[in-house]
């Protein structure tokens, strides 16, 4: 395993140009008047702050605990361009702690603010008393720093080192951030004893990527029984890799984006193998199979699924009592967990926080707690139920090849019969049996079947949100309009509306419908059907009436249902458009015009397709004697689009908005 992986890395490096040791010219701790002038740099002039240099270096050394530590050194120089950039003068450094004596420590911390005053550089050092510490959770301590003497034009230098006993925590590196960066560099020096998988993403090319090897010696010490230190020195090859990016722009979040984390330029590392001299290589996390086995046995995940949870017995009898068939039993169990438990932490972790028995007793837990309990309950009843690990869209993509487990943050349940399978999520009280939230459709996921983690895909293209509206309107001879609207929103829109009704009541919902119309429309008999059938979309209907005596009547056949604004606001797009689901919206309008009025003008019919039928817009209007019928349909079968397709996507919706604002014109006949 190890060899084949190294091979991949070497291969990748071959084709790259290795420039001769180009170094960053920043001299940390020394600031000269010329450093304040960035006019020669290619900086986005609109930026509030500019990262002049951000340099990280990770290396390994022996520690006093008989093992290796990672030493992460960071040097950062930022210039505050204007008042909005003052936020860049406050920092947080998170440090991980675990039980036992393992921890991360901050050392060699030095920070200063430099101001150019009357041509000379004035330095103000940060005092150690100004570094505050907040214990944020059991495992995380955060050092908080507010730099002194910061104003527009200040330069800030910060240098620190983090010593970490956690080998799995090889620092990742974001080349791209909130502020543009002129020089962003990362170097890792990894002794031959450790193998890390490197995961890279982003759209900015490396300015430098170089590799080299050298020898390194490491002193490992540990305390003996009488309090002295024993020591062992080892010498081995150190693999050094250095990456540099120059002039990296800041990235901005636009609509229809899963998360910017999927798109920023960054490097991440995963420890895959440890092979100390004279001992067998130990694979730390090399295959999905290993992880599968670990998860199966983990007390925070699968272990509780494979024991006989007899404590469930009594409750289960009540829950499934009287079920007619196995499908109903499944549904009862699902509804029991969904309706009686509160999800306290929605998309934080794929690991449980408590034993299933405690979760059952407390009636609450995180998403893993609830859906593993659901899996255990289904298994207890003899169903084939499996936990599925995934990452929600806003949490970012998972890696298909490497089992990078902290990319996962969510668990759902799969239940199978010989002919069918359903995916269940009991953590959301508004979800129906067999439905998943749109956030779960994020591509690659893994299902734990016994000890195997099998790949499974939840593609947003496979979800289709279908919306259907029909309107019947009759106009009487005086010009008064009476009509009926029937509206079936898509599943996810229904879910949102159910949430509104649940939180704020039906009145709020009715208020929303009424507020879509001008006050001279009378909206009556609003009905919401299928509110409790969580598997199905809602069915809404209402009556409408408008007293009118005008000679000319203008009416939009989409009433209030048309697309009023183009959802693609920006003129340009720098990374892909990611819509949550495919959709198909159909509007049907029927109107009967009295003999006293003539149909003076109708909008024209059109048909537009997007990219050979991947999307489309059809607007068809016909007149049959005194009947007007209009059908408008907008659909998209695809959900992800490249930046190159953005303009045509935007134009398409522009066309829809324009067409859907057109009006029918009716005129009172002169005399009859």
């Amino acid at each position, binding site marked *: 395993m190890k060899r084949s992986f190294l091979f991949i890395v070497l291969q990748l490096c071959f084709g790259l140009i290795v420039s001769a040791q180009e170094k960053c010219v920043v001299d940390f701790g020394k600031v000269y008047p010329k450093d304040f002038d960035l006019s020669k740099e290619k900086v986005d002039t609109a930026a509030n702050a500019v990262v002049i240099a951000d340099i990280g270096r990770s290396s390994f050394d022996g520690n006093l605990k008989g093992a290796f530590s990672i030493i992460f050194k960071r040097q950062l120089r930022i210039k505050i361009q204007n008042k909005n950039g003052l936020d860049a003068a406050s920092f947080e450094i998170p440090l991980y702690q675990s039980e036992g004596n393992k921890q991360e420590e901050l050392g060699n911390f030095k920070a200063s603010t430099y101001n150019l005053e009357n041509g000379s550089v004035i330095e103000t050092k940060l005092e150690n008393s100004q570094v505050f510490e907040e214990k944020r959770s059991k495992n995380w301590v955060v050092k908080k720093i*507010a730099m002194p003497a910061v104003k527009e034009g200040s330069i800030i230098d910060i240098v620190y080192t983090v010593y970490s006993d956690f080998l799995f925590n090889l620092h990742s590196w974001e080349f791209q951030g909130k502020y543009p960066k002129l020089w962003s560099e990362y170097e890792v020096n990894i002794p031959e004893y450790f193998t890390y998988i490197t995961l890279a993403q982003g759209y900015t090319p490396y300015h430098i990527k170089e590799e080299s090897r050298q020898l390194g010696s490491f002193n490992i010490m540990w305390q003996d029984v009488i309090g002295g230190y024993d020591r062992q020195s080892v010498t081995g090859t150190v693999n050094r890799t250095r990456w540099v990016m120059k002039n990296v722009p800041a990235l901005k979040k636009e609509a229809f984006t899963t998360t910017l984390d999927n798109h920023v330029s960054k490097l991440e590392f995963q420890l895959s193998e440890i092979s100390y001299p004279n001992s067998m290589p130990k694979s730390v996390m090399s295959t999905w199979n290993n992880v599968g086995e670990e998860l199966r046995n983990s007390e925070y995940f699968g272990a509780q699924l494979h024991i006989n949870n007899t404590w469930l017995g009594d409750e289960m009898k009540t829950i499934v009592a009287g079920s007619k068939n196995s499908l109903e039993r499944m549904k009862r169990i699902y509804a029991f967990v969904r309706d009686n438990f*509160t999800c306290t932490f929605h998309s934080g972790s794929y690991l449980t926080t408590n034993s299933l028995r405690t979760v059952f007793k407390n009636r609450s837990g995180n998403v893993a707690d609830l859906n593993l309990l659901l899996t255990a309950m289904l298994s207890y009843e003899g169903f084939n139920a499996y936990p599925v690990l995934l990452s929600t869209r806003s949490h970012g993509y998972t890696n298909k090849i490497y089992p990078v487990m902290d990319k996962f943050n969510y668990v759902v349940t799969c239940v199978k019969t010989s002919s069918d399978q359903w995916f269940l999520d009991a953590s959301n009280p508004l979800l129906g049996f067999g439905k998943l939230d749109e956030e779960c459709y994020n591509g690659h996921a893994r299902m734990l079947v016994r000890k195997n983690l099998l790949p499974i895909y939840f593609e947003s293209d496979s979800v289709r949100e279908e919306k259907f509206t029909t309107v019947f309107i009759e106009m009487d001879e005086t010009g008064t309009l009476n009509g009926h609207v029937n509206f079936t929103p898509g599943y996810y829109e229904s879910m949102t509306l159910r949430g509104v009704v649940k939180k704020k009541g039906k009145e709020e919902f009715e208020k929303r419908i009424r507020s879509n119309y001008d006050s001279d429309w009378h909206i009556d008999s609003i009905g919401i059907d299928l509110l409790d059938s969580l598997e199905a979309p809602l069915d809404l209907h209402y009556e409408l009436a408008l007293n009118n005596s005008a000679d000319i009547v203008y009416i939009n056949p989409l009433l209030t249902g048309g697309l009023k604004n183009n959802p693609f606001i920006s003129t340009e797009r720098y990374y892909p458009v990611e819509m949550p689901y495919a959709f198909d919206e159909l509007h049907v309008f029927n109107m009967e015009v009295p003999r006293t009025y003539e149909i003076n003008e109708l909008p024209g019919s059109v048909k537009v397709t997007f990219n050979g039928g991947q999307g489309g817009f059809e607007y068809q209007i016909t007149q049959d004697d005194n009947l007007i019928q209009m059908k408008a349909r907008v659909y998209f079968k695809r959900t992800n689009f490249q930046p190159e397709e953005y303009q045509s996507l935007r134009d398409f919706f522009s066309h829809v908005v324009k067409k859907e604002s057109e009006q029918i014109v009716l005129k009172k006949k002169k005399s009859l």
Partner: protein
Amino acid sequence: MKRTFQLLLCLCVSAICKAGNGDYSIAKITPALMKEANVIKRYEEIKFEVLNVNKARTYKKVAYTILNEKGDESAEIVEMYDKLSNQPSIEATLYDAMGVKVKSLKRSDIKDMSATDDNNLIDDNRLKAFNFYCKNYPYTVEYEVEQDQYYTMFFPGWIPVEKEMMSVQYSSFSVILPADLHFRYKASNGAGEPVKTTVDNKQVFTWKLQDFNAIKREPYAPYWLELVPCVYMAPSEFAIQGYQGNMNSWQDFGKFVYALKKDRDALPAEVKAKVHELTDNIADTHKKVALLYDFMQKNTRYISVQLGIGGWQPFDATYVATKRYGDCKALSNYMFSLLKEAGIPSCYALVKAKNNSFVADFPSSQFNHAILCVPLAKDTMWLECTSQTEAPGYMGDFTGGHYSLLINEAGGTLVKVPGYKMNDNLQVRKTFATVDATGNTEVHENGQYKAIQQEDLHNLINYNAKDKQLERLKSQFDLPQYDVVSFSYKEEKSRIPVINEDVQLNAIGYASVTGKRLFIMPNILSKSSSKPTAADARKYDLVLDLEYKDVDTVEIKIPDGYIPESVPQPQQIATKFGKYTSSVKIEGNKIYYYRSMERISGRFTAAAYNEFVQFYEQIYKADRSKVVMVKAN
């Protein structure tokens, strides 16, 4: 951008309980209490006992019956603590609908976490929280909490009706004091006078409330504390971290605040030199203040560190001068010191920022912010010292019109910061538009915004990069689709600050062209989006805070060859809430539109509410009325 410092949270908590005999069966709730309620407070007993001037203890026992999901919020208990108070002890029991005990809380189930506010870099607030997460409605939770605090500067208030749609079956509140100490109270909205007794040589004051029906909040209603029975309480003599004070009058309270801040105005020599360099050759005091204010703005920023007494005592001026940061107290004191060095007397002042709910006739710690007041020969200038961008003397919506306590050696004086009136809060827009044959419309707008109407823009242009400003402009207008062609802003930093805007848009398909007709809304940029909902039986007064005036003139050029088919009628709507006027005139291929809107602030009777709704409905509709043009032949 301005920020407040955090109020030390009043901690509620004392001892001895009669406890759990309570029968919480829902059968014992009257139908009147069920009406409109999501939660019923079944029982509440709070005892606030002052042990001595340095220490107090709160005991609280409370039970809520949760009727449905909307009431779940009340089922969770959250108790704060910090360096000046002990960790609260919490007991909890869950009962079912019949009042039968289901389970009790285990200590290990209580969450303990940091409660540091996002606004603060660091403070010492922590919280304990617990929840049964029951979903079998109705159910009842009962909590008992006890907590000691090592200060007596704050007394809890009694607000038995905590929120809307909560009814109260029984609530009592007692203050227990040693014989030699005093406290003060103000009972509002029918809370009544307390029953006074003496127990073990201690004074006991008790209030009770029984069978209070749930209230539903109404839009534009007065502050909550004006609607429900409540008792404000405050100490006479008090202490906090070794500082002693008295709150009998605003003057006394001011003396205490003065003691905390006095002698903290020493400046480093180089800052003193700078003050003289800036101001010695200037004659006009007003100008001196403006220069020093600008110096302070350029050389400091807002960073809030609230630890212990630091929540009340400003960091000294030297600290701010060297660190170049501070919170509202520290920055106001720093500005005070700069002015002092220049020989200009000023006055440190506390104020209630943001929310203007204030009880002026009840001296107590009701403030959440500090500012500076500079009395000048002709008038008085107020300075907001946490902003790096505000015009000198402009206080804005944040503190304008709010109560403020001036702090002098002689004590405190309660005054009002000047507020902003209709003619201050002005928005004037001139718009020129050209429609092409397909309906695309080029829009060129020149806007002028003043006082409170310029605040959003002020923050946008001062605290956001150009790309963020553009982003906001891209979604600001209610137009189907538009691109921003160009934009620029110019700020005039005067007492009534002004922002001049120049924006060019390309509104794609703004006019709808179908066959022989052209439809266009002449009000392109200033459509009102308010649509309050009518109420059948309004209970409370209608309160309008802000007054302002908007004026729009629009000139639209459309393609040749059209004649008007339908033109909106001119509107003149005058109500007690304000005036609205609009008119459309068509000359050849030009459409001229005029609109003005004046909104008055004030308090109106509940009966006037539907008239108010109607006023806004008429505006909403008038703002969206269309001109229809038809091809001439």
